[in-house]
C-alpha cells in the first residue's frame, strides 16, 4: 500500500498532539488513486488520472475541537500542522459552551481489505474508453417503437480507483483500509420534436472491475435508455388525486435516504448542521416515536459486501454495524458518532465518515434501505391496487432541511388499474410529508435492490458514496399530482 510510507507521520502527529496537551488526538492518512473517462455524444474527452494523499489531524483541547489537514507530507510540516491544530482548539475553547467529548467508544485495531477479482488498476483510460464506447453503441443502436424519438445527447463517466486510509487515535485505535471501487454515471437525453425526457443513471460498488459484469452495466443502460424513449414517445397524462402508489426499489431507496436516514443523523438533531444541510423534524427525545405504519421498516447497513457505502469500521476507528432506524413505524435508533453518542448517553454505532484527508469525519449514512417484506413479487403487490400509480424511476426530487416536506417526480411510471399496470404516464408527482409517507406504508415485496448515489453534507461540502434501496413499497391513499 502506498500509504505505508506515511503511516509513521500519523503516529507522530498523535504523539505530538498529546505532548502539546490534547485530551484526544486522531490522525488519518487518507487518499487514493483513480482513473476516469468521459464520453460525450460518443466522443472521448481527455482522460483524467488522480493521485491524492494527505494527512488530517483532529484534536480536543479543553472541550474544543480543531481539525487540520495538509497534503505536504514531511515530518516538519506535520509537526507544524499538529501544533497549529492544538493551538486552534485551545484558543477557541472560550467560545465553546457545549464541551466535546469522545466518550467511551472503544476504537478498534483492524485491517479492512476489499477483495477484487479483476483489480481496478486494470481500469486504465483505454479500458474505460472501450467500455463506454460499447455502452454508447448499444444506446445509439436502440430502436424505439415510438416513432421519431432519439437520444442525441449522451454523457457518461466511468471511473475505477482505490481509496486508502490509515487512522490512529490517542486511545488505541489503529485502522487500515484499502477499498477499490468502480463507478458509472450517465445523463441521457431523449428528444422528440420539441419535447425532451432525461434519465440519470448512477451505479457503483466496492470491489474490482468484475462489478461491470455483476451489475450487468451494459444491459442495464441499454434497457433504461430504451425505456426512456418509450416514456417520451408513449406516456399519457397522469391522473391527479388520492390513490394507492407502489414505489419501486429506486423510489423506496431515495425516500428512505432523504426522509429517514438524514433526519435520524444525530448531529442534525443536535443542531450541528443547522446553517447548511439543516436540522431534523425529530428531537433527541424522539426515540420510540411513531412516524410510520406498522409496515414501515427502514435500516442503514455499512457491512453489506460489495456495497457502495461499505464502511465496516468508521473514520473515528469505531467498528460499525447495521442500524435499525424505523421498526414497525417507530424510531428506534439514530446514526451516531463518538461525540453525539456521548452527549446523548447512548451506544455509538460507528457512523462517522470523511470524504478525504481535507475533510473532518461527520455522521453519514452508508446503505440506507426499506427492509423487504412478505409479497413474493412486484406483481403480487400491484395486485392489491385497484386504481393507482407504479413509480418505477424518478427525475427531480428534493426535501426541506428538516426532512419533512419531500417531492419525487416519476420518470418511468405506470397507471395501475384493477391490479395490473396499464400504460406509461408522464411525470406524476408525489409531494408528501414524512409522516404521511411512512404512515401510508401498507406492504412490501421481497425483492431488495440498490442504487448508487453520492450524498452531500458538511461545510466544506463532502460527497460520500452510498447506496439507497429497498423493495417495492405500497403506499395506501396518498395524493398524486399529474405532471406535464
Amino acid at each position, binding site marked *: 500500500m502506498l500509504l505505508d510510507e506515511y503511516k509513521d507521520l500519523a503516529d507522530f502527529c498523535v504523539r505530538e498532539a498529546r505532548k502539546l496537551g490534547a485530551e484526544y488526538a486522531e490522525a488519518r492518512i487518507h*487518499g487514493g488513486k483513480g482513473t476516469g473517462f468521459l464520453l460525450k455524444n460518443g466522443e472521448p474527452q481527455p*482522460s483524467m488520472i488522480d493521485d491524492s494523499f494527505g494527512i488530517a489531524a483532529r484534536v480536543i483541547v479543553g472541550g474544543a475541537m480543531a481539525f487540520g489537514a495538509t497534503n505536504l507530507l514531511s515530518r516538519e510540516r506535520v509537526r507544524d500542522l499538529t501544533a497549529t491544530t492544538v493551538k486552534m482548539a485551545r484558543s477557541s475553547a472560550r467560545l465553546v459552551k457545549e464541551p466535546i467529548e469522545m466518550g467511551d467508544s472503544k476504537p478498534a485495531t483492524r485491517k479492512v481489505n476489499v477483495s477484487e477479482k479483476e483489480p481496478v488498476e486494470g481500469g486504465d483510460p483505454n479500458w474505460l474508453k472501450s467500455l463506454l464506447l460499447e455502452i454508447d453503441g448499444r444506446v445509439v443502436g436502440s430502436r424505439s417503437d415510438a416513432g421519431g424519438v432519439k437520444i442525441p445527447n449522451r454523457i457518461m463517466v466511468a471511473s475505477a480507483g482505490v481509496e486508502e486510509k490509515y487512522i490512529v487515535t490517542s486511545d488505541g485505535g489503529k485502522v487500515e483500509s484499502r477499498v477499490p471501487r468502480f463507478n458509472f454515471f450517465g445523463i441521457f437525453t431523449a428528444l422528440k420534436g420539441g419535447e425532451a425526457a432525461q434519465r440519470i443513471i448512477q451505479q457503483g460498488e466496492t470491489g474490482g472491475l468484475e462489478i461491470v459484469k455483476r451489475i450487468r452495466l451494459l444491459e442495464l443502460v441499454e434497457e433504461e435508455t430504451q425505456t426512456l424513449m418509450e416514456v417520451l414517445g408513449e406516456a399519457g397524462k397522469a391522473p391527479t388525486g388520492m390513490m394507492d402508489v407502489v414505489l419501486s426499489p429506486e423510489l423506496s431507496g431515495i425516500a428512505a435516504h432523504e426522509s429517514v436516514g438524514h433526519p435520524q443523523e444525530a448531529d442534525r438533531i443536535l443542531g450541528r448542521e443547522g446553517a447548511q444541510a439543516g436540522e431534523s423534524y425529530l428531537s433527541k427525545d424522539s426515540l420510540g*416515536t411513531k412516524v410510520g405504519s406498522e409496515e414501515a421498516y427502514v435500516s442503514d447497513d455499512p457491512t453489506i459486501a460489495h456495497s457502495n457505502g461499505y464502511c465496516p469500521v468508521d473514520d473515528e476507528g469505531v467498528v460499525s454495524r447495521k442500524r435499525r432506524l424505523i421498526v414497525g413505524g417507530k424510531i428506534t435508533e439514530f446514526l451516531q458518532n463518538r461525540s453525539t453518542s456521548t452527549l446523548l448517553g447512548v451506544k455509538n454505532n460507528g457512523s462517522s465518515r470523511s470524504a478525504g484527508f481535507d475533510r473532518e469525519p461527520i455522521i453519514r449514512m452508508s446503505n440506507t434501505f426499506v427492509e423487504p417484506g412478505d409479497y413474493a413479487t412486484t406483481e403480487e403487490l400491484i395486485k392489491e391496487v385497484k386504481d393507482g400509480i407504479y413509480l418505477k424511476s424518478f427525475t427531480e426530487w428534493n426535501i426541506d432541511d428538516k426532512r419533512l416536506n419531500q417531492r419525487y417526480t416519476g420518470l418511468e411510471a405506470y397507471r395501475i388499474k384493477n391490479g395490473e399496470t396499464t400504460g406509461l404516464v408522464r411525470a406524476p408527482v408525489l409531494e408528501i410529508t414524512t409522516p404521511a409517507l411512512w404512515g401510508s406504508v401498507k406492504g412490501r415485496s421481497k425483492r431488495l435492490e440498490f442504487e448508487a448515489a453520492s450524498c452531500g453534507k458538511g461545510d466544506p461540502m463532502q460527497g460520500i458514496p452510498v447506496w439507497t434501496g429497498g423493495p417495492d413499497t405500497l403506499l395506501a391513499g396518498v395524493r398524486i399530482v399529474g405532471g406535464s
Partner: protein
Amino acid sequence: MAKMMGPDESNSFGVRVAKRLGADEAILMTVISNERMERFANSSVTVTKNVKESGQVVYLAKGGRRIIGSSSNPEKASLERFIELLYKSMMTLPKDPGYVALPARGRAYSPKPSHDKKLESAEGLLSGYVEEAIESAEGEGARRTAGSLEAGVTSHHIMSSTGTVGSDTSSRILLNIRAFTDRDASGHGLSCSATVRDFRPATAGERAGSHSERMRNARELSEGGKTYQVLMSPTVAANLLGLVGEFASAFSVEAGTSYLADKLGKKVASDSLDLTDVGKAEGCLDARTFDDEGQPTQSTKLIEGGVLRSYLHNLSTAKRFGTKSTGNAGLIEPGPWNLEIGRGDSGYEEMVAEMKHGLILTSNWYTRFKNYRTGEFSTVPRDGTYLVESGEVRAPIKGIRISDSLERMFSSIRLISRDREWVQWWEVDNPTLCPWLLVDGVTVTRAYGEGPSQGG
C-alpha cells in the same frame, strides 16, 4: 523526506519532464490554498479548521491525444513518476476529436496583487467575527444560531510548453449564519467579500436574527399548485441565476444538459435581465486573470436585454462553435468565474408595494431539475418567507416549494432592484453580484399530509 518544490519550480520541472517524454504540449497548474474555518451551532463553536493544500493539474497532448492528471504530491520524484504515468496512459488512447492546439505563443501574466493580505493568515480574526455575528443575531431576538465563517487565500500558478507563465492570488471571507427562535422559525444571513474591509458580520447576524423573530408562528398556505408573484432576495436569485450561468457552458449545451441549447440570439429572459460572467473585477471573490488553458479571462455578456448573447467557451468548445475562447476553461468543461446581474431601478419597498398577491423569499435550498434540457426545476424556500397581499406583508409562511421552469420564470421579471449584493454560500458555488428580483406567475406547491405532531 525528499525535497518539496515551490509552485514555479514544480511547474517548470513538470513542463521539462513532459517535453523530455515527447509531449507536444504541456500545461502545469499549481494551486495553493490556505483555508481557515470556524463552525458554530447552538451559539457555541463546534470545530475550528485549517486546511493547507498544494496540488498540481497536469495537461499533456501528443499527436492529437490528450490527458489530464491531478496530483497532490509536490515532491520531485513523485511528480516525475506521475507525469510518466500520464504520458504512458495517453499514448494508449486514440486521437481526441476535441483536441485543439494551444496558441503558438503563450502569454505572461503578472497581475497587480489585489487580494487582502490580512486573509493570508486569518488567525485571531475569525473568533471575533463569529462573536459579532452571534451577538447581532441574538440582539434581534434569536434564541440560538448556527453557521460557519471561512477565510482564505488561493493562488494559481501556471506554466505551459508554449511559453505561458503567470500567477494570480485571490482572497475571500465568507460568513453564513442561521438564527432560530423555535423549530419552524429561522432566518438566514450571509456576508461574503474579497477583503476584510467590505465584510459585514454584524449585518448578516442582524438579518438572520430579524427573520427568525418575524418567522414565529409561520403558517402553511391553504393550498398548493397556485401561482404567485415572488420577490426573490439576492441569495435566492443568485442560486437560480448561478445555474443559468452554468447552463451557459458550451459543454452543457453539447451534452444536452442545458435549456439554453439552440437559443443564441434569441430571447430567453425579460428585457430587463443582463447576466455577465466576469473573470476579474472590483470586489470579485474568485478573481482569475487566466483560465486553466492559460487564456486571458474577460467579461462575457451571457444575457443582454433578455437575449442570449454568448456561451462560455474553452479552446475546444470554441472551435466546434466557430468562435473564440471566452477564457473560461476548465480543461474539459468551461464554466463561469463570477456572475454579475445588472442592476434595476427599483427600491425594495417599491417592489413590495407592487405585489398584489405574492411571496417574499429570502433563502432557498435543494434546487433540482426534472430536466436540464428544458430547465424545469423545483426548489425549497427556507428561513424568512412571507405572504404579501396588496403591497402589505401579511404573514410568515412555511412548507412551500417553487416548481417552475427557469426560462419561463426569468421571462416574467417585473422589477429589479438598484441594490446588489455579492452572494456565495452552500447553495451558490460561483460568487454572484445579485439584486432583488420581482417575478410574476411563479408556481408554488405544498406537500400532502400533516406534520409530525398529527401524523403517523
